[in-house]
């Protein structure tokens, strides 16, 4: 687990920014990745320690843009 600050771009430009976090959870704060790890609880605790009361979390799915999604 490492502290990382990766800025998300808008629209399709966001693609390369999260590629290095595939298979991990990230904490987003003001559109910046501030924590990442396969262990969600660990990064939530780190985010809360930084004063973020309601962390925004996202699992970065391993999926190429050509794959059609289903719910499950």
């Amino acid at each position: 687990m490492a502290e990382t600050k990766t800025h998300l771009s808008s629209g399709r430009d966001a693609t390369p920014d999260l590629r290095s976090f595939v298979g991990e959870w990230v904490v987003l704060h003001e559109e910046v990745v501030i924590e990442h790890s396969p262990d969600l609880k660990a990064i939530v605790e780190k985010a809360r320690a930084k004063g973020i009361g309601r962390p925004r979390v996202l699992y970065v799915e391993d999926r190429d843009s050509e794959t059609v999604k289903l719910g499950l």
Partner: protein
Amino acid sequence: MPDVSYRISLDYPRDPRTGDSFPGLWIGVGRLGTNSELEVQCHLDSGAELSLFDGQIARGIGLELQRGVVQAYGTSSGATLTARLHRVRLSHEELGHHELRVGFSEQPIARNLLGRDFFGLFQIGFWESQSRLLFSPEG
């Protein structure tokens, strides 16, 4: 034929990974009786009878995943995954706060799903051509 009107219109969120928009929400999932809450991205899935979140989210808000009642979920591929049911608070700035008993998966899942239990709280419209969701509270 009933006329349907909606009070709330929300843009589809974008998947930060691909930039694609989709019918879903960023929604707060909170442990009842506390202010422990996470904001998570969810897909609206009318094919899901019950909402389903990744089990790590339960742990992230301080729930003991295994203390929930076991619930099996059948997937479109025919596989079955198991989840634990917990009552949580779902919060959204425009949609308000709602308590729901939802599933938290025992296996990792790629997407959180808001299902027909959530749909029962609102009249929901999908305006796909405009990439917008439309809501009116039920009752």
